[in-house]
């Protein structure tokens, strides 16, 4: 469904993504783990068209989307839940959700959008209770739910999430991840989840990639990665002694 081929991205002179290649199949949940500053958000923003790629290709169902504008990419069915939620704080919860369906207004029946709004409220009942509240006044967990709900309002085929667990309590994290896994299982949404919390990400994902300073270091199915000694040491904090270095 999505395939990155030898992707290189720069911020000015800084080379952030170095020859990245990866692929995501339809219906899969894939995770990308890596330390701070590895370039994970940069990769997602390249996919979403926020950051331009210098060379390489981003193939989405066979077409190169690397030069498309962010709004066209959303129209193709790729939606991002950005790092740090990035809500429209002075707008209401409902307005945030409706703006998620911005590309659909004028093209589709309003009833369809209303139906999806109800679906999101069913997924996150807490948002329904707070639909008139300003997004900026929500708690961290509720904000994450709203960010996810907003991204779902455009009916994405591929949903990419940037550190959904950031700053949340363990209970909320597993709640969020259960919801993410449910999207894959019931709605057949393809998912690409960036995480620092490798344990929970690998628990729910089918496959994973490990990224370090702009390069993909490892890839494999989740169970193998969880058992990988280097992953255990660097991301699960198990063995303190370095295995290879």
């Amino acid at each position, binding site marked *: 469904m999505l395939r990155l081929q030898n992707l290189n991205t720069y911020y000015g002179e800084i080379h952030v993504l170095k020859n990245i290649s990866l692929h995501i199949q339809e219906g899969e949940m894939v995770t990308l783990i890596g330390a701070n500053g590895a370039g994970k958000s940069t990769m997602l923003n390249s996919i979403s068209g926020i950051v331009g790629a210098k060379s390489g290709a981003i193939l989405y169902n066979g077409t190169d989307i690397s030069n498309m504008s962010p*709004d066209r990419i*959303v129209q193709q069915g790729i939606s991002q839940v950005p790092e740090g939620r*990035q809500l429209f704080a002075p*707008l209401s919860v409902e307005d945030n959700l*409706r*703006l998620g369906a911005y590309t659909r207004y004028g093209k589709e029946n309003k009833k369809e959008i209303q139906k999806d709004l109800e679906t999101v409220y069913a997924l996150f009942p807490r948002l329904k209770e707070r639909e008139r509240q300003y997004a900026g006044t929500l708690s961290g967990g509720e904000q994450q739910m709203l960010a996810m709900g907003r991204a779902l309002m455009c009916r994405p085929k591929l949903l990419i999430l940037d550190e959904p667990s950031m700053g949340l309590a363990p209970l909320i994290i597993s709640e969020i991840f259960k919801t993410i896994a449910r999207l894959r299982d019931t709605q057949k949404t393809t998912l690409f989840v960036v995480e620092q919390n490798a344990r929970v990400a690998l628990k729910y994902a089918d496959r994973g990639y490990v990224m370090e300073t702009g390069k993909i270091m490892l890839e494999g199915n989740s169970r193998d990665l969880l058992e990988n000694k280097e992953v255990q040491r660097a991301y699960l904090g198990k063995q303190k002694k370095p295995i290879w270095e």
Partner: protein
Amino acid sequence: MTLSSQIVQFLFTGITIGSIYAMVGLGFNIIYNSTGIINFAQGEFVMLGGMVMVWLTTMVNLPMPLAFILTVAIVTVIGALFERLAIYPLKKPSVLILIIITLAGSIIFKGSAMLIWGKETHTLPHISGEEPIEFMGATILPQTLWIIAVLAVIVTLLAVFFNFTMVGKAMRACSVNPTAASLVGINVRRIVLLSFALSAGIGAVAGIVFTPMVLMEYDRGAMLALKGFCAAVLGGLGNGVGAVVAGLLIGILESFGAGFISSGYKDGIALLILLIVLIIKPSGLFGVSEASKLKEF
């Protein structure tokens, strides 16, 4: 004339001119919110509104309502073209460059107006005649009431637009978080285009209702832009209600200053208020100080 009737008189004069400042201030804010820049060509849209209206009614001899619609349409298109030709082609422009471009734009608009309509002043007939209305000993021109009504209509329409339409909400979304706005599929460049068109349209309306009260000439834009800018800053940049209140306040203070002190100080008053506010409360009367720290300009 008694003192109380004088006060009423100055008050109405102030509200009239203040309404115009408010409209210019609103135009500043709309563009500021979507781009973070101060469009110094804002006053030229008012001048163009007046000039095009004069041209359509006196030279082309169109009836008033038709000329009104056409004028607003023409100036709106000019605003949109200005964005597409001068702002849009820039990749990653700095705030300073954008400001210089809008200044250049204002010079070009002014020069073109001079070439087309000459250096002489122009005027328009009042909408409902010039028979003054007596009110508490003061005489008020019907045009004053028209100007206040037009401001009220603009404010109402903008409130409906920004709170109840999807495009209006998208514009607000762009102003709070452009990156997130593009991630939900809003074409941010198109919103910028729209904000220039909208500001130009509002400027044109201001020019049309204002011209009968004064004499419109090619170089009137700069002073209007300055006063509108004072209104926008005083109200807290980006704050629509603030701009309206501050615009009216500046107009009223100016009118009282001119009446009770000397008309020579009139233009200085707005700048003096601006300076005092910038020293005491840089975020403006209605601005939030935390937000102003994050602003680039």
